[in-house]
């Protein structure tokens, strides 16, 4: 539904011939408050990582505001293992645009900014073409389809910073600042872009809006898992035969996603571990994914999270110390530097993990590593600190033996060196 296999759907003529923008017409005849209500009742939850109920988020926007209101569509897509929004820009950009206009109408936003990571310049151009075409047909701009409602959609290009996917950093970046997250409260719905009421939604979240309006909230809420319904784009990468983005209803078994969608593990090897929803989500042991489903509740119960549904599969021969070292290096590199625990802690963790990687870890290093992770978590302005701590904490919790081996090895090395001396 988000990515139907229809050739040429990225062209406005083809999109229109499939009924595209018809839902916008319908939405514009409704009361804006009704639309917020429909999205609320549909139980749509954000697809950007936090699974926050979208309708509830929309309802935080003040109905009457002397200041202009803004919608930011978050296409910064930089979480390692995540490559789904890109498919929407490429294959179904008008669905995103239609959803954006409906969202603007529902919340009374006169401007929407679609923030896209700088590396995606090719896809920015694709989306810009679709936006231009939509302006040309009167779906964006002044007095849309004669409804009296006007809104503009502008694309805004980032320049390489994972942190700009964090909603308040994204707003700062839009204001031409460094991508520093803001202290909350105040929340964006009260004090967002230039101090005005602002809502930030992920690209895939917004692409779900026309579907809800088309199907009605009741039918939509019955797709997949009741508490986290709808179609979801799952990106599967790593050691599988057919990596890629697969659209499915929420609640698919992780084992089915790997076997039925992604063609199973390369060389029929056993699964050692999976990261279910992008590098920030907690790692799971291969044998622990039996019966676990791709939805917020099931993954939470399993000790992880849906995140961005970017699933990374690792076979039995994977060096998990190398994996966690690389993940930590990423957060070290991407920490914006505002908060000391994150700025310093990510570097310390990386340094310690390098010791494990080189089998030079000392007695007590596991506890030290855990101590640093625990002291980053919850002590920073934004969730990047948590995102850096969770993979480390879960890796130690679930694969402690991998760490211990590297300590023992180093002790053995030191022992033999002493014997030589």
């Amino acid at each position: 539904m988000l990515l139907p296999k229809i050739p040429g759907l990225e062209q406005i003529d083809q999109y229109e011939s499939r009924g595209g923008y018809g839902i916008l017409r319908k939405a514009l005849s409704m009361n804006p408050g009704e639309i917020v209500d429909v999205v609320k009742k549909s139980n749509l939850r954000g697809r950007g990582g936090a699974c926050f109920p979208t309708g509830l988020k929309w309802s935080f926007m003040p109905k009457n505001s002397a200041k202009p209101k803004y919608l930011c569509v978050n296409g910064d897509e930089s979480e390692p293992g995540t490559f789904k929004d890109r498919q929407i820009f490429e294959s179904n950009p008008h669905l995103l645009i239609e959803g954006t206009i409906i969202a603007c109408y529902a919340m009374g936003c006169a401007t929407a900014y679609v923030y896209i990571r700088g590396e995606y310049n090719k896809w920015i151009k694709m989306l810009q073409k679709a936006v231009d075409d939509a302006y040309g047909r009167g779906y964006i701009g002044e007095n849309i389809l004669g409804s009296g409602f006007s809104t503009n959609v502008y694309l805004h290009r980032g320049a390489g910073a994972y942190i700009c996917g964090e909603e308040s950093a994204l707003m700062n970046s839009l204001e031409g600042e460094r991508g520093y997250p803001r202290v909350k409260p105040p929340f964006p719905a009260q004090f967002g872009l230039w101090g005005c009421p602002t809502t930030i939604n992920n690209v895939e979240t917004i692409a779900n809006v026309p579907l809800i309006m088309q199907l009605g909230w009741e039918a939509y809420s019955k797709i997949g898992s009741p508490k986290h319904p709808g179609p979801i784009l799952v990106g599967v990468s790593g050691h599988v035969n057919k990596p890629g983005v697969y659209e499915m209803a929420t609640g698919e078994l992780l084992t089915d996603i790997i076997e039925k969608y992604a063609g199973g593990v390369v060389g029929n090897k056993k699964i050692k571990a999976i990261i279910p929803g992008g590098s920030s989500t907690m790692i799971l042991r291969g044998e622990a994914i039996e019966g676990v489903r791709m939805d917020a509740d099931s993954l939470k119960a399993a000790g992880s999270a849906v995140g961005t549904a970017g699933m990374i599969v690792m076979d039995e021969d994977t060096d998990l110390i190398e994996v966690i070292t690389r993940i930590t290096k990423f957060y070290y590199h991407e920490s914006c530097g505002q908060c000391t625990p994150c700025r310093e802690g990510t570097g310390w963790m990386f340094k310690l993990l390098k010791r494990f990687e080189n089998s030079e870890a000392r007695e007590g290093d596991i506890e030290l590593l855990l101590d640093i992770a625990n002291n980053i978590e919850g002590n920073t302005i934004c969730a990047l600190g948590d995102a850096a701590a969770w993979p480390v904490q879960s890796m130690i919790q679930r694969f402690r033996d991998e760490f211990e081996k590297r300590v023992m090895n180093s002790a053995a090395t030191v022992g033999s060196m002493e014997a030589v001396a």
Partner: protein
Amino acid sequence: MLSPQNLESIEVLKTRYQSPQSVVLEALWMWQDEHGWISEDGMKYVANLLQVPYHHVYGVVTFYTMFNTRPVGKYKVEICTNISCMLRGSRKIIGCLERKLNIRLGETSPDNRFTLMEAECLGSCGTAPMMQIGDEYYENLDVLRVEKILGELK
């Protein structure tokens, strides 16, 4: 200096935001596209153009990794080494690139044709390993394909 065409675009862009400061990133992109990298002169120019302090522009340029704060080769080859690419052999691709270009990660070839850089996740995990050269993504890489791509660039 920016081209008259870009200066015209900047005037249009300014109307889209409450403050001209929002155009800083786009103006820097334009400067980089025209000049290859962003020098101190470039930062001062953008600061003056948008009426924001020079130190602010400096802060922005040094924050975002895609802005080149020193000259780079004609082709900036960025290879993703993040987890999904790592699991599918990005290390081998780096080895191949380093051998073929005779430079190490972070270096520029003496003829200024190539700069080789390590990149964080570029959102191409399903088609790993991958590299980006300019706007173009080169995906599902293996050694043979890398050699072919480099051959075509020369």
